[in-house]
């Protein structure tokens, strides 16, 4: 970047000339009067130093000319102040954006940390339905004693499958009329539904009635067929529901 210039040190300065050069420097520093240059004895004998002294006197005379005030461009101060104000606005805006970005990042980090470090279920049995032994009686066990209610937590607890199933099972068991009885009523409901299809007895003379007789007979047989068809289903459903209620009741709450 800098231009390469030969330094004055590249130019040999005789030791006897150094005092004169020092005097020139002090005069240019303002520490020695300019008259001292004229009185330098070595300069009168050394052509190079004499020329240096004369050049220094020229330089001193030019530097002594008071500099004219710097011509300021019109409106320079206003332009500067406008630029400064704009720069300040930009920096404030940038700071706001940076702060918002940092807050968003911090929130994301916090959420991530919460997901990573949140307390896990103490035992896997909380979410696993206990399987009864094969020779266990096919009846629902008595309702378990309710665990002491946990202390109210400051934050809502996450939903746990074990807890939800246990409370659901308990609620079903607490129902005054077992749901199994309702399932047993299903054939009667089907009977009631099929009643409207039963037509009153009519003479067979009507050709339309004769044509519809097979359909009417099928509809009349429908409740019986439904009863016979659904009987195993209802029986199985009863057994399945009873087993389900028994299993649900045996689920241990995990907390």
């Amino acid at each position: 970047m800098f231009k390469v210039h030969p330094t004055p040190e590249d130019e040999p300065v005789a030791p006897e000339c150094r005092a004169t050069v020092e005097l020139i420097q002090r005069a240019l520093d303002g520490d020695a009067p300019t008259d001292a240059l004229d009185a330098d004895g070595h300069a009168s004998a050394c052509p190079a130093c004499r020329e240096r002294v004369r050049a220094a006197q020229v330089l001193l005379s030019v530097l002594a000319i008071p500099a004219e005030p710097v011509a300021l461009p019109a409106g320079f101060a206003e332009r500067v102040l406008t630029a400064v104000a704009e720069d300040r606005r930009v920096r404030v805006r940038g700071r706001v954006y940076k702060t918002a970005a940092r807050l968003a990042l911090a929130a994301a980090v916090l959420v991530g940390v919460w997901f990573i470090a949140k307390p896990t279920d103490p035992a896997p049995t909380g979410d696993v339905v206990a399987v009864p032994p094969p020779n266990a009686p096919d009846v629902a066990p008595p309702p378990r004693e309710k665990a002491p209610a946990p202390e109210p937590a400051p934050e809502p607890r996450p939903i746990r499958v074990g807890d939800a199933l246990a409370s659901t099972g308990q609620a079903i068991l607490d129902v005054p009329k077992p749901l199994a009885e309702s399932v047993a009523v299903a054939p009667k409901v089907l009977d009631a539904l099929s009643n409207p299809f039963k037509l009153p007895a009519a003479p067979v003379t009507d050709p339309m009635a004769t044509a519809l007789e097979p359909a009417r007979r099928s509809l009349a047989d429908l409740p019986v067929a439904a009863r016979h068809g659904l009987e195993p289903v209802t029986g199985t459903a009863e057994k399945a529901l009873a087993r389900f209620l028994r299993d649900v009741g045996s689920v241990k709450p995990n907390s």
Partner: protein
Amino acid sequence: MSADAALVKRCLHGEPAAARELVERFQSDVLAVCRRLLAHLHDAEDVAQEVFIRVFRSLNRWDHTRPLRPWVLSIAVNRCRTWIGKRGKGPELADYLHEAPDRRPTDDSAEMVREIRAAVDALRDEYREVFVLFHEQGLAYEQIAETVGRPVGTVKTWLHRARLEVLDRLRGRGLVPADEQNEPSKREAPQTPSVQG
């Protein structure tokens, strides 16, 4: 509290009048330094504007126990260095001479002023900085040392070398009054007599 410190405090409080006062107090010096170091009028104005932006950005870091002017000029010198670095070349003397107004256009010393300016412009950047700060801005060695971020001894060395180079240029250009009693300068190494073959 010094006047500088009071002014800076008002600026930090966001007083527009204080900001204007600061700009008006230093705009001449900053522009002069930028013009002399960059040797380009338009560049100098752009850089001077940047200097004040930097000054206002950094006001809270100014050491209130030190004078404000050298600190402002140090920012100007640094911005000029950066600008020269971006420009990738040294000051263009011809541009400067075409654009810069002469101080003494009709005086007999005008040519000498131009020659000295040209000599200063031809200095390497560090030398030119200390020469301008000392002889044109009137800063002391210690202030220049703070401004350019170098020890006082280095600043003295640079300034002395800068002066000798300027003096040599004046001598080399024949601008030194002739000595009636002596031969012209023979300061260069003794010339080897040419051998006639």
